[in-house]
């Protein structure tokens, strides 16, 4: 799968510390909301690609 245009997202509710809660990323061209949960295999792949230097994640708005 091809991951592009990654950007952090902060949940607007139930997020008292205003933390990043998801990565918005195009997966094979489809806008996808990937939770920051390492059990989620899309997030695990994002972490792998970030570590490999092939993907960067922009800051949240």
């Amino acid at each position, binding site marked *: 799968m091809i991951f592009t245009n990654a950007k952090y997202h902060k949940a607007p509710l*139930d997020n008292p510390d205003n933390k990043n809660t*998801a990565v918005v990323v195009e997966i094979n061209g489809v*806008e996808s*909301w990937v939770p920051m949960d390492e059990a989620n295999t*899309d997030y695990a792949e994002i972490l792998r690609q970030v570590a490999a230097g092939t993907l960067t994640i922009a800051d949240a708005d």
Partner: protein
Amino acid sequence: MSNARNLANLLGTGTQITTADIADEVFLSNKNIIKNGAMVVAQRATSVTGDTAGGSVKTVDRMNPEMNAAGTWTQSQSTDVPSGQGFVYSFKLDCTTADASLAANDYVAFGHRIEGLDLQRLNYGTSGAKSSILSFWVKTNKAGNYVVGVQNVITGSTTKNCSFLYTVSQANTWQKIEFPIPADTAAAFDNDANQTAIIYWWLAVGSNYNTGTLRTTWTNNVSADFAAGLNVNLADSTDNEWYITGIQWEEGDVATPFEHEDYATTLRKCKRYYELLEGSVYPTDYSSATLGNYFWTEEKRAVPTVTADTNSGGHGFNGVYKSGGYFYKSPANHNSVANIRGSSEL
């Protein structure tokens, strides 16, 4: 006289068979570790063309072709099935661009991934580890020796592998294969909801994957061993196709008849990994924003990745739970969100 006694008499030689034996060996339900082994559920699509990379579920639920630079493939839910077995669908791989000269790292395999929670019944890593058996029906135009293997992906340790060589002696003929899987008393399956076992049906491999030794007992992973003995390159011609159905992994040394499930049960099992909430959800006002809730009909394995087929209002998804989440837009936008999809594949 009890059925157990009748059965014992039929077997003769004074064999003592208890009711418990019969319950364990004959009438055991929910015996199949494999989900959607009859290929009946295909939530995403029934056919996808142009696949060169594999690695994700694209048609039949829970079924992952795995590929690396070995031709181009169409995968589909096929109605070609073994006769008289009660199946209506199979999974088909059809080569549409050939690769007759595989590089060392190239491969095509059919895969099925299993979470650890579903493997604990085998008691691996203990003195009571159980033997088991994998059975399936397969058909291809290309006769030869094929390999199927199971990998135990162990967190913090080396993955282990156990494989089996089978021969397709007659082209274009359905045949049932039985792979006895020895117990592993040394290494447990992780007890979590993550990818723990992967079954690979190897169909074409480069020299990195078949120049070792076929491991018929559980052995630490060596890539060259994975498909040792495979003498077929299913990618070598666009005439090639491969079908599989009726996959069953069960305890014991004897492959019992495939356990057909009602469709709703299989669909519910598949929704643990992927679900489409078909239809439109209309957000409501929430202060100066708009907000809509969604709830999966089946709790997911992990918090899922969320997409929507239509989201013209630009709502953001906040799927922070395994059971659902909400979408939100500030300032407000009242456009509906249609066909929300959640994926928590292994």
